C-alpha cells in the first residue's frame, strides 16, 4: 500500500483521555514503553480521577495520561498537548482547554451519543457545532471499527471486543508517530496469553488502529521523532514510586541490613508498600500496620534490632508519625521516613500533587527535634534519594525524612541504570564490644557525633535507651541535669548540622557566571526550572539555576550562592516554605513563585515570571 509522507518533529506532547473504564493509563504506559525503546527522551504524567470507579461517562470519571517525547532531552511532561485523544464527550470536555491552539484532536465518534453528551453536560454535540473550530479534528468511529476488527474471533463477546478500543487508539497514535509495534504486540500476547479470545481481540484492535492510520484518507502525513542523544548505557523507563522502592532495596543490599518496611496504606504512598512487597526474595520484610503510628514504631523497633527500618506515608500520616519520629531523634537510631506529599490540608485532594510538607519535616515535632531531610527531584532521582537517605540514617544514627510528591511518584522518565558497584557504600559498623573500661556506654559518640549501634544478640552490649533526656555523651542514663539537657540538645543539633561537611556543595548552573537572577528550587520543580531556564536563555536572558537535594542541613555554600545573585526566585508548589528557611538563615530578600493547584508548575508560567522579574 502507498506509504504516506513522513514529517520530522523534535518534540510532541500527546494526551490520551477517556473514561476510567477505558484503560487510558494502560494505553499511555504502552505508548510510553514503545517510545522509550525507540530511544526518545520522554516524561509522562497520569491524571487519575479521585473516585475508584466513578459512574461511566461522567466528568469526574475521566482518566488521562500525558506523554512528552522528543529527540532532545526534556524534563517535563509538557504544558499543552499537541495531540489529544478523547474517547468520550466527558474526556473532551475536561481536557480540550489544555490542547494547544490548532492542535490535533482525535475523538472516538461512536461515543458521542446523547446519553454521554448529556452526562458531560453538552447541550449539543461539539462535533456538530463550532466549538471545535481552531483545532484539527479527526472523527474516528473507534468502537465500531474495533468491534468489526474482532469479528470472527472465537468466543469473544461484543462487550469484550468493545473493551479493546483503547488498543485501537494506541495503534492509531503509534502509527502517527512511527512507534515500533512489535513490543506492544509482545506485551499483549504475554498479558492476555491465558485468555486467547481477549488476546486476539486486543491484537486485532491494535493492528486495526495502526492500519486505519496507514490506509484511511483521513491522515495525510505521519511523523517521526528521532531518538534523543543520550549517554551510553542501559536505560529503562521508571516511575518515581518504583525508583524509590528500588532505592530502598539497593540501600539494603549495599549495607547488608535487611530492609524492614512498615507502612499503613495511603495515596500516593501505598505504591511503595506494593512494590517493595513484591521483592521478598531480597529478604525484605513488609508489614501493613494498623495505623501510621504503629508503622513508625515497628520500623523503629526493627532498626533497634539491627534492620534498616523504613516507614512511608503521605501528609496526614506524617502528622501521626511525628511523636515517634521525635522518639527516634532521642534514641538516635537509623530510620528513614518517606513522605510522598499530596495536596492538603487535612484529607485535601488525595490524588493531587503539592510539596507543602517541608516546614513540617523541619519543625513538625514538639521540642527541639532536628533531623536530616532529603528531597528527590526527578522520578529516577527517587532511587538516589532513597539510597542517600538510608546512607545518612545509618552513618549518623538518625531518623531521616525523605520527601517525594505525587507528581514524582506517578510520572516516569528514562533512567540510565547505575552500576551497583558505583552506589555509595553503607557501613552499619555495629558495635561489637565494650567501649568504656570494659563497659558499654550507648551514648559515647564518634567523630561525627554518631553513637554506637549495638544490636540485640551481641553479648556484653546489653543496654537500655529511651525517650527521657539522658546523659548524652556517655552512659545514656536518664538525666534531669540542666547543663546536660542543654548539652544534649546542642549535640543532637550539631550532629545533623555537621552532615553539611560531607555532602556536596550546591551546584549552580550559570553559563556565563553573570546571571542577574538565580532560580533556586527543591523537589519536583527541577524539571520545569531547567526547561524554563533554557527557554529564557534562548530568549537571550541570563538566568542561573540551582537545586537543593539536601534540605537539612543545607549544602555549606548555600549562603554564598543565594547572596551572590541580585535576585533570587524560589518556585514552589506551596505558599512559600523553602523561602522561609532561606530568608531566616541568610537574610536574603528571595522572592517566591508559588502555585497551589494540585498540579505541577508549567514552563510557560515560570518563564513569564522570570522574564517579569528580570524586567
Amino acid at each position, binding site marked *: 500500500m502507498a506509504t504516506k509522507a513522513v514529517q520530522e518533529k523534535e518534540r510532541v506532547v500527546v494526551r490520551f483521555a477517556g473514561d476510567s473504564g477505558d484503560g487510558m493509563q494502560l494505553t499511555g504506559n504502552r505508548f510510553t514503553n514503545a517510545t522509550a525503546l525507540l*530511544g526518545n527522551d520522554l516524561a509522562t504524567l497520569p491524571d487519575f480521577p479521585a473516585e475508584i470507579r466513578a459512574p461511566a461517562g461522567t466528568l469526574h470519571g475521566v482518566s488521562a495520561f500525558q506523554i512528552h517525547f522528543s529527540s532532545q532531552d526534556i524534563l517535563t511532561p509538557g504544558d499543552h498537548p499537541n495531540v489529544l485523544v478523547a474517547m468520550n464527550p466527558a474526556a473532551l470536555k475536561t481536557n480540550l482547554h489544555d490542547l494547544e491552539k490548532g492542535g490535533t484532536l482525535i475523538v472516538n465518534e461512536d461515543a458521542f451519543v446523547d446519553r454521554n453528551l448529556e452526562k458531560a453536560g453538552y447541550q449539543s454535540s461539539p462535533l456538530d457545532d463550532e466549538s471545535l473550530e481552531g483545532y484539527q479534528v479527526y472523527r474516528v468511529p473507534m468502537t465500531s471499527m474495533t468491534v468489526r476488527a474482532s469479528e470472527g474471533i472465537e468466543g469473544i463477546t461484543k462487550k469484550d471486543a468493545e473493551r479493546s478500543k483503547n488498543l485501537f487508539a494506541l495503534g492509531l497514535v503509534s502509527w502517527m508517530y512511527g512507534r515500533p509495534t512489535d513490543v506492544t504486540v509482545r506485551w499483549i500476547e504475554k498479558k492476555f496469553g491465558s485468555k486467547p479470545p481477549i488476546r486476539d481481540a486486543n491484537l486485532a484492535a491494535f493492528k486495526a488502529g495502526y492500519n486505519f492510520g496507514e490506509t484511511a484518507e483521513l491522515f495525510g502525513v505521519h511523523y517521526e521523532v528521532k531518538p534523543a542523544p543520550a549517554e551510553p548505557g542501559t*536505560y*529503562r523507563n521508571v516511575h518515581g514510586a518504583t525508583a524509590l522502592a528500588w532505592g530502598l532495596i539497593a540501600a539494603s543490599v549495599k549495607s547488608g541490613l535487611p530492609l524492614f518496611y512498615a507502612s499503613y496504606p495511603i495515596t500516593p504512598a501505598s505504591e511503595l508498600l506494593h512494590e517493595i512487597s513484591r521483592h521478598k526474595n531480597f529478604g525484605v520484610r513488609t508489614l501493613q500496620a494498623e495505623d501510621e503510628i504503629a508503622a513508625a514504631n*515497628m520500623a523503629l523497633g526493627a532498626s533497634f534490632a539491627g534492620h534498616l527500618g523504613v516507614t512511608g506515608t503521605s501528609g496526614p500520616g506524617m502528622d501521626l508519625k511525628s511523636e515517634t519520629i521525635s522518639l527516634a531523634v532521642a534514641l538516635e537510631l537509623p530510620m528513614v521516613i518517606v513522605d510522598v506529599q499530596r495536596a492538603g490540608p487535612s484529607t485535601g485532594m488525595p490524588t493531587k500533587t503539592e510539596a507543602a510538607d517541608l516546614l513540617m519535616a523541619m519543625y513538625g515535632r514538639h521540642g527541639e527535634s532536628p533531623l536530616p531531610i532529603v528531597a528527590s527531584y526527578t522520578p529516577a532521582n527517587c532511587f538516589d534519594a532513597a539510597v542517600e537517605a538510608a546512607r545518612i540514617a545509618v552513618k549518623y544514627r538518625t531518623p531521616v525524612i525523605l520527601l517525594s510528591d505525587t507528581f514524582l511518584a506517578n510520572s516516569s522518565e528514562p533512567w540510565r541504570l547505575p552500576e551497583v558497584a558505583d552506589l555509595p557504600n553503607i557501613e552499619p559498623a555495629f558495635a561489637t564490644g565494650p567501649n568504656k573500661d570494659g563497659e558499654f556506654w550507648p551514648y559515647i559518640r564518634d567523630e561525627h557525633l554518631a553513637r554506637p549501634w549495638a544490636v540485640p544478640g551481641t553479648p556484653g552490649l546489653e543496654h537500655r535507651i529511651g525517650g527521657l533526656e539522658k546523659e548524652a555523651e556517655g552512659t545514656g*542514663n536518664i538525666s534531669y541535669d540542666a547543663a546536660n539537657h542543654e548539652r544534649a540538645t546542642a549535640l543532637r543539633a550539631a550532629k545533623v548540622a555537621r552532615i553539611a561537611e560531607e555532602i556536596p556543595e550546591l551546584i549552580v548552573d550559570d553559563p556565563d557566571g553573570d546571571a542577574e537572577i538565580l532560580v533556586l528550587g527543591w523537589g519536583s520543580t527541577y524539571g520545569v526550572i531547567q526547561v524554563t531556564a533554557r527557554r529564557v536563555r534562548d530568549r537571550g536572558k541570563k538566568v542561573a539555576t540551582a537545586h537543593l537535594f539536601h534540605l537539612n542541613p543545607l549544602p555549606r555554600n548555600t549562603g554564598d550562592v543565594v547572596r551572590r545573585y541580585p535576585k533570587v526566585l524560589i518556585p514552589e508548589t506551596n505558599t512559600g516554605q523553602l523561602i522561609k528557611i532561606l530568608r531566616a538563615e541568610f537574610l536574603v530578600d528571595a522572592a517566591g513563585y508559588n502555585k497551589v493547584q494540585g498540579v505541577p508548575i508549567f514552563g510557560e508560567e515560570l518563564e513569564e515570571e522570570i522574564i517579569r522579574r528580570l524586567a
Partner: protein
Amino acid sequence: MSEGNGQPEVQGNGQAAQGVALTKKDFTSDQEPRWCPGCGDYAILSAVQGFMPELGIPTHQMVWVSGIGCAGRFTYYMDTYGVHGIHGRAPALATGIATARPDLSVWVVTGDGDALSIGGNHLIHTLRRNVDIKILLFNNQIYGLTKGQYSPTSEEGKVTKSTPFGSLDHPFNPVALAIGAEAAFVARTIDNDRQHLTDVLRAAAAHRGAAFIEIYQNCNVFNDGAFAAVRDKQSGAQQNQIRLEHGNPIRFGPENEKGVVQRSDGHVEIVDVADVGEEAILVHDAHHVDPSLAFALAHLSERPTGPTPIGIFRDVPRPVYGEAMERQLEAATEKLGRGDLVKLLHSGDTWDVP
C-alpha cells in the same frame, strides 16, 4: 534467626552463650528502681528477675520494651537489651523487634493506661497477629505516673483528680478484651503472689506467639487496696482467689467448698459444691480452640472485689507472626531466586545506548 539479618556473627555468639547458667543478678541492671516505697512494681520486678534464669536465654538475646508510666520504668532495671518507648506504643515497637528478629526473646511491660487507653489499638492488633511478644500489663486501675487520674480499668463512679464528681466510664475487662481480640494466650496473676506469678510467666514463655498477662498491681499511693479482696490475706484472698488449672474442676475456697458451673444460657456461675455435686463442676480447658469458655470465665467476676479467677484462661497454638514472615521470605526466595539487585534494575523493558 534468619540469615541476612545483618549480624550473623552476633547470632553465633548468642548461640555460644546459650546454656550458660545465669542468676538473678545477671538480669539486674545497675539502675536503682525509683518507684514509691511499697509499690507493687517492686515485687513483680523481683519475681521476673528471679524467674528469667530458668529460661536459659542469655541476657543479650532478650529485649524488654515498655511504654510510659510507672510500670514503664521496668525496662531500665533489667540488664538485657531494652527500649523505653513512648506512651502506648510498646506493642508496636516490640512487633518491629520480634518480627525482624524471631531469634530474640521479646517482653513488654505496660500499664492499664498505656496498654488499654492510648495503646489499646496496638494491643489488640498485636494479639490478633500473634506476634511473639510476652505482654505484662501492670493493672493498678489508675494512672500512677501522672499522679492519679482514673484509667480504663477503674470502677464506675471513681473519684479521682480528673473526676472529682466520679467517673462515668464503664471499665474494660482486660482478659475479656484480649480474648475478644483473638488472643491465643491470656492469663491473670497478682503482684504479691510470687509463686503464681512465676508459674504464669513460665507458661507464657512456653507459648509461641503473643502472651497477654494481666497482673493485679497495687498502687499504694493513688489506689491502695484496689485488689485487697484477691490480694491480701486479711481481706480474704483465700476465699476469693479462683485458681484456674487446665484439666481440673474449677473449685475454690478454704475447703474447696465452692465451685463454678456452666448454665444452659452460656454463662458460668459460682455455686456450693455441696448443692450441685462434684461432677457438676466445670472442668477448666485452657486449650480449647474455641474461646467461649475462657470468655465466660473472664466475666465470672466483673470487678476484683469478690471471688475472681486467676491463672491461665486460654493457651492455644496459632501460627507465630515473625516465623510466618520468615517462611514467606524463604518461599519467595525459592520461587524467585535470591534477590539480585542488578537483575532487578534490568528487569522488564530496557534498551541500550551504545
